[in-house]
């Protein structure tokens, strides 16, 4: 039930901060989403949507971190198995 799905914010309508709505594209399916909880969200941002509300804006920089972290781990592994600096 806590499923939240990432989608791209394609347009924003309304000025009232509580009822501001956005159209969000989920891989081709477009839905109307309440933006009250993401006041800083802008067009082209990716938002995570749960029960009709955007709950957070996806940080594109942080989104890469999982892969970078893995690369560091793999490097460490290589170094230790090939007798590199980490193996002492």
């Amino acid at each position, binding site marked *: *039930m*806590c*499923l*939240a*799905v*990432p989608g*791209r914010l394609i347009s924003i309508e309304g000025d009232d901060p*509580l*009822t501001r709505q956005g159209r969000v594209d*989920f*891989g081709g399916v477009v839905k109307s989403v*309440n933006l*009250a*909880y*993401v*006041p800083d969200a802008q067009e082209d941002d*990716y938002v*995570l949507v*749960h*029960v*009709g*509300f955007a*709950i*957070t804006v*996806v*940080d*594109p920089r*942080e*989104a890469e*971190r*999982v*892969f970078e*972290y*893995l690369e560091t*781990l*793999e490097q460490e*592994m290589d170094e230790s198995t090939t007798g590199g600096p980490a193996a002492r």
Partner: protein
Amino acid sequence: MKYRDEYRTPDAARAYADAIARITTRPWTLMEVCGGQTHAIVRFGIDQLLPESVSLIHGPGCPVCVTPIAYIDKALAIASLPGAILCTFGDMLRVPGTNSDLSAARARGADVRVVYSPLEALTVARENPGHEVVFFAVGFETTAPANAMAVYQAEREGLGNFSVLVSQVLVPPAVRSLLERPGNRIDGFLAAGHVCAITGYEEYELIARRHRVPIVVTGFEPLDILEGVYRCVRQLEHGESSVENQYSRAVSRPGNRMAQQVMEAVFQVVPRQWRGMGHIPESGLGLAPAYRSLDAETRFGAVRDENEHQGECLSGSVLRGETRPDQCPAFGTRCTPEHSLGVTMVSEEGACAAYFRYRRQAGGSTRE
């Protein structure tokens, strides 16, 4: 889909699994709290990628599953009132009450409507001024701001025919309660990313310190979960117990302040009964005094805590992570999604349903 598919690549998953195997020297048991994570783990076989000594156990993270039977009975009673319209998330339809469920009530003629968002329940109320419209507000902290917004807007509009039956629960008190159970096997937690997107994770820092358990705020895709496991195991191997944020693309330490403000205005913390976990102090949300006129319990009578009789179903123990679904003697035989004996099989996000959907052919074993 962007921000989903790239976190499912098998090569990267295997690389993470190798990294975990490399640093693991002792057996560790980690609990993931959220039912969405449980499903991803079973669906993608993440538990089978891990070294034998790292076990994942599934926690109480399905709000549908932990809603006490007394609330289902209340919703059924309201739905049977003449002129009443009960709006609910689809997940609640087949959850058994004492004698029936909402889907059966609807088949018998009750006006039970499935909504995707709590704001749709407001629309139903606006369009049906002669009817009492009650929204069954179930959920963890992820859903609480959405439910709170429906209440807030109804009050602002003076929508007199709208009310909410609130069964909101909070994750940190449940985590604490599990850790305080004598003999619990939990060495570390993967905290639910979407809950933390709302609440942040300061409260988890207190738990990690007090109970000396590592807690890693974790996302829902396979690579997220594997990284969460890696970070948790690394802490355990080093004797550390702090909070790390794996899901930083969606979660910040303070969380979503705006959502917290609306939640805090509309709700207040109350004691709650959990199915399978019993009574937990300060573990739920009820309407704050200023919104009590919108409380379905004010209009239609209070829900009473009752002792629950589970019969042969072990779902209470499944929800506490003590029994794996496929260890239940009824699993897949007397208990299936079509003819279920318990809520963890009925709910889409229940652990029994996940095992039934993805593990039945595998002969019921969780290990290769």
